[in-house]
Each structure stands twice: as structure tokens, then as C-alpha cells.
């Protein structure tokens, strides 16, 4: 069942903490800084959930990281520095978009590679296929003549 697991995960989380995702008391006063915090949180994984970003998650851990991000942004830290700090603390696991590096090369190339391989297969299949309609056999000619004669 598709959503079952997501729902179960949500159930667990909801049971653990009766809090919603971003709470009114978390919102920063400066809308520009808040927008930055929201955009950044949407890229970060809630590590106790199923592929949910911390921006959407109800988990207490997600809230902690959301507050941490806002604190650091208020102190004037850049997005890149914040991201680097979080990766040093939690590993690449926290990034919803995996970094492009040797270990993820195959992953990032999966789409172009399958597309190229598929195209190649199509071209090869066309090459292999007979290019002209085969001529009629003597028997078929005879049958054709019969039908035309009717």
C-alpha cells in the first residue's frame, strides 16, 4: 500500500509530539530572512521521517533544526556555511538533494544514461530490422493471381 508507510510514519510522529510543522512561534520577524529559512529547510531531510523535509515535518528533531537554522540566519550566517555546518554534523544524509560526487555519479547519470542506452537500442533495432518489404514467394504470387482473378 502506497501511503500506508508514510501514514504510519506520520502516526508515529504525531503520537510522539502533538506539534505541527512550522509553528507560529518559530517564524522570524523579517520576512526576507524567514523566506530564506523556509527555502533552506525545504532542502533538508527530517532524519527520523520518510523523505520528508524538516519544513513539512512534525517531529521534535525537525523543529530543533528549524530553530537552529533561524538562529544562525539571524546571526548573519550564509546558506552555504549553514549547509556545510549541518553536513559536518549529520552527514550527506540530511541533504534531500544528494551532492554530486564520485559515490553518487551513477545516481546522477542514471537518467541521461538510460535515455542514451534506450535510444541506442532503438537505433540498433531499426538497423537490424529488414529495410525493405520482402518480395512475395512464388506461392504467394500464385495466390495473389487467384484472388485478383476472382
Amino acid at each position, binding site marked *: *500500500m*502506497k*501511503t*500506508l*508507510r*508514510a*501514514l*504510519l510514519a*506520520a*502516526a508515529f510522529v*504525531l*503520537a510522539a509530539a*502533538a*506539534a*505541527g*510543522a*512550522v*509553528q*507560529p*512561534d518559530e*517564524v522570524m520577524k523579517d520576512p526576507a530572512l524567514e523566506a530564506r529559512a523556509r527555502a533552506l529547510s525545504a*532542502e533538508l*531531510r527530517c532524519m527520523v521521517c*520518510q*523523505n*520528508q*523535509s524538516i519544513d*513539512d515535518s*512534525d517531529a521534535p528533531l525537525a523543529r530543533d533544526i528549524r530553530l537552529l537554522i533561524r538562529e544562525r540566519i539571524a546571526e548573519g550566517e550564509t546558506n552555504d556555511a549553514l549547509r556545510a555546518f549541518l553536513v559536518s554534523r549529520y*552527514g*550527506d*544524509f*540530511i*541533504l*534531500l*538533494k*544528494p551532492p554530486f560526487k564520485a*559515490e*553518487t555519479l*551513477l*545516481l546522477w547519470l*542514471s*537518467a541521461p544514461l*538510460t*535515455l542514451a542506452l*534506450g*535510444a541506442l537500442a*532503438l537505433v540498433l*533495432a*531499426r538497423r*537490424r*530490422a*529488414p*529495410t525493405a*518489404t520482402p518480395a512475395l514467394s512464388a506461392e504467394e504470387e500464385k495466390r495473389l493471381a487467384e484472388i485478383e482473378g476472382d
Partner: protein
Amino acid sequence: MTVEIGHFALILALTLALIQAVVPFVGARRGDPALMGVGAGAALAQFVFVAVAFAALARAHLTSDFSVVNVAENSHSALPAIYKFAGVWGNHEGSMLLWVLILSAFGALAAAFSRGLPARLGADALAAQGLIGAAFLAFILFTSNPFARVWPAPFEGGDLNPVLQDPGLAIHPPLLYFGYVGFSIVFSFAVAALVEGRVDAAWARFARPFALVAWCFLTLGVAMGSYWAYYTLGWGGFWFWDPVENASLMPWLAGTAFVHSAAVMEKRDALKVWTIFLAIVAFSFSLIGTFLVRSGVLTSVHAFASDPRRGVFILAILAFFIAGSLALFAWRAPLLKQGGLFAPISREGALALNNLLLTSACATVLFGTLYPLALEEFSGEKITVGAPFFNMTAGLLMLAACFVAPFGFSLAWKRGDLLGVAQRLAVAIAGGFVVLVALIAIFRGGPILEPIAAGLAAFVMLGALCEVVARVWRSGASFAAALSRARGLPLSFWGGAAAHFGVGVTLLGLAGVGFGAETIATMRIGEAQKVGPYAVVLETVGQRNGPNYRDSVAAMTIRSGGAFAAAIEPARRQFSARQTTTTQAGIATLDFGQVYVSIGDPNADGGVPARLYWKPLVTLIWLGAAVMALGGLLSLADRRLRFGAPALRRARAAATGVEAQPQ
């Protein structure tokens, strides 16, 4: 007693499945019609016995028979009847039984309609279907028996998981399973064709209706799951790209590709090997979708440890059917004769391109889903592959497939004229551009991807309409003439047009996401909060008792320019049996958009923390899926695809002594 009857019926069903797997296959090898004929009877009887087993379990759930472990663990006497019934498949064992019930139903259907087929092909296909049934019946009986008793019986059940106490549970799993399992017939016929070493247009004509049925259900099932998640999870997300969702998207993508390539095979006798391959792939993904996910291996390798017997059994079944069928394909596919030549620019060419894009998208989703697992296994490194990755890769490929769709729909078979098609689609192309440019101009500095999606959506929808107009209307002809032309078009054409239109509708709904609004605030009684073009006012806060829960309700009204537009009641729902709380979002549909409000627990000073969203056009996402399924249904109703239609025509021709006109 009924529970034991159910258990016994399931054992009989397994025996019948084994007979169905072996006898017709042997008969086909020996050319013995009596042995081959066993398959149909066994398939029908197997369905009857699985239905008896399912009815027995359903009765135990409905009567709250807590002496059955499955009922005691997953039901409660205070549950409303609908959830007692839906709760039959709200757990591992019961959902497996539902899966096998649907599998045997499809098997019986195939048996009933296989008479018009070459005897050996039909016998082999039923044998393959029997083998699938036997594997999963054995899995249920040996590792997941829903009929186990417990003594002494508890006075009360452990309750159904509160998140599952939703009408979605009654609808979503059956729809999805009909979709998954419907592809099993197509798979069985592909296996039979490979064993035979021969496949032709008649094969496609027989397999395509089953694929269309499966595809319609799967489309609705995926959409229903998405809507369920949307209104349950409390923040209005409808797609998370999590492994469970991906598992249902993959068979849908492969199935969509199959429905298209089977059309080419049926009409033009081309893409045969590819179609057979897709038949295998579509069901393989269905198996992965149901079982790999259920076993928990996708989210955590360690979930297997909780019940290693089940995990190993499932893996063995998956490996046998997927690797076995692919090996059979590699061995026998070269025997299949290719036919049907076509130029690259033709309807076949466009469909091949569509297939390429859809299967690449499917492969990318598979890669993205399994990559973190493989990487952790081999290097110990943990990464996350989330929405940004899938949007950039699979999302882009699917958009490309949408772009190709109107061209493919308008191109002629065999050799097409791209310039002519562009003229035919001139209105659609212009319409798409106008939408794109207008949106970028109006929302300057706003999102870029969403206007592109909206433009593409307009192009796809108008493209389907353009083709209808081009087929129906001739310049100077009367309205009546156009109407009679429209009536003369085959239903499968209307089905294709509707399905493509539906894709455009869904795409438009997705594009709407970029133009939404969100407000996070602590609401107080009498105060208004603005969200998008609306103002939401908190009217009262109160408590309300349900059959087995207690709601903290915040009654709100939605106003548009001071006038009342709708009332909603978002709530926090407390279930006493499992001590859990769920969020009940308040949703009002206004035009095609929705105002969506979810609340948290009230503060000590009476303020209610709330998140308010305005989601323009959001309902189109799911309405589009319904339109797609309608298209599939229209296609299915086409005379040409009706089961046994050729036989009927032959009979009629023989009766009247007139040779039937080839269509």
C-alpha cells in the same frame, strides 16, 4: 468454525493453484486438449475458494471475533462497521489475502475469456498465472496466516491504527491492488508467448484490455493515495517521492508505456519484443511495489530482522518471477519475428519516443529509490535521495513525454508529416505560448517552472481538442455532418483524446502549486487571517465526541471580500484505544482551488496555532487522473477490444453468408 472453513478453503486454493500451474503446461507440451482444459476450471475454482477464505476473514472482523489473532491485533469492538470491514486489509496478513483474491479474480476472468485464443497460448498463460497464485498462497499459509487463533481470547481488540481509520482505507488499497494485479495477466500472457516463441497482433488484442483495466485502476489508486496523503498529513503535500509512493509510480509508468506500445503492436505489428519486455517489467514493478515495500527493505535493511522468514520468502518469490521471466525473455525473445516497418517521423516513432521517455523516467525512479540502500550496503555511507533529485530527473523526463504526447496523437501511422501536424496543432502551440508568456508577465519575478508547466498543460489539453476537431470538422461542412463524423470515430480514439486531456489537466493542477499562498499564525476567536484571496476567521473552539474518538474542533469561516464563502472545521482527533492524536485538516473547495487549514493544540491563553494554505487549481491534479481513467475506460469499451469480438463477427458473417469487412 467459519474461520477454520476459511483456512481450509485457502489450503484448497493452494492445491488448485498448483494443479493449474502444472497440468495445463504439461498438456500444452503433449498437445493434450483435456489436460490443457484443466487450467480454466482450476482458475475458476481457485477464485471461489479464495473468495470463501476472504469472506471468512471479513466475517471474523465484522463480528469482532477476538479469538482470531488478526482481529484481536487490528480491530476494536467500537469501530464503525465500515472500518471493521476495511480493517480486513488494514494489516499485513489481510492485505496479502486481498491481493491473492484479486489475483485469482483476474485469473478466473482470463480463464473465462481465453476460449478464443490459440489453445497452447491460453494453457501456458493460465499455468503461469497459477504459478503466481501458488507462490503467494504458500506465502500466506506458511508465513502470514490470517486465520491463526489465540487462546484465551482477549476481551477487546488492539484497534485499527487511527491513521487508517479513514474512508481512504476502504478505497485506496483495493484500487491499487486491482491495478498491480491486473498486470499479472499481461505478464502471464507474455510468458506464454515467450514459451511459444511466437507473438502477433491477436496477442496484443487480448492482452491490451487487461492492461487497460489494470492501468485505469492503478491511475485511480495512485491518485487516491495522493489525495489521502494530502488531506491526512496536515500540510497539504500530495507527493513526497518516498519509496512507497515511488513503488506505485513505477508500475504506472511501465504500464502507461505498455498500453501505448501494445497499441502499436496491435495496429502495426511493430515493437513486439519491446511490448513483451514491458509486460514483464510492468508486473515486476507491481510485485516490487506490493512486496518489497511491505517487507520494509526499501526503508531500512534492518526491518527484515523483525521477521526474517517473511523477508526471505518474499525475496525468493521476487527473484524467481522477475529474474526467471527476464531470463526467459533473454533466451526466447530473439525468436520473436519483427514486423511493421515505419519511418522515424510517424505515430509509431512518436510512441517509441514516448516509451523511451517513460521507461527512462521509470528507471530513474528505480535508481533513486534503491541507490541509497545499495550505497549504504557497499560503502556504509548514508545519503538521501529526495524530491529535488526526482523533480530534476524523472520529473523532467515526464514533462518531455507530455510534450511529445500531442504530436504522437496527431501523427499518421507509418510515415508522418511533422509540418502538417504542426499546422494541425497550431492553435494548441499558440495557446501554450500565450499561457506561458502571460503567466510570466503577470507574476513577474515569480516562479519559472510553474508557468512552463502551465503552458505545457495548455498545449496538451488543446492538442487533444485540436485532433478531435481535425477529425470531426471539415471546412464548409454542416454541424450535423460533424456530429455524425464524431459518432463514427472509434471509442478508442475518444479514449486516447480523453486520457491525453486528463494528463494536461493534472499538469495544470501541478502548475497551480507555484501560485499558492501560506500563512502561519496563532489564531484568536473573532480574528481574521489572510491567505491568498481569502480571509479566514476563527469562530468558536469546542469539543465533540465521535464513535471512538474525541475531536477538538476549531470552527472557522472563509470570507471572500467580506462575503461568506465556506465554513470549515479543522480538528485534532484523539483516539483513546491507542492514545494517539491525528490532525483533521479543514478543507474547502472553492472553484478548482482549496483553502486548507490545519491546527495544533490550543495554547494556554486560548490561541490556536494554525497553518493556512490557499492552493489554487489543486483539485485538478486528481480530477485529471479521473479523466485519464475515463479515457482508459472509453478505450476499453471500444468494439474492437471487446473480448471475443472477432469470434462474434465471424459467427455473424457465417450466419449471413457475407464476408465481414475488415476494420
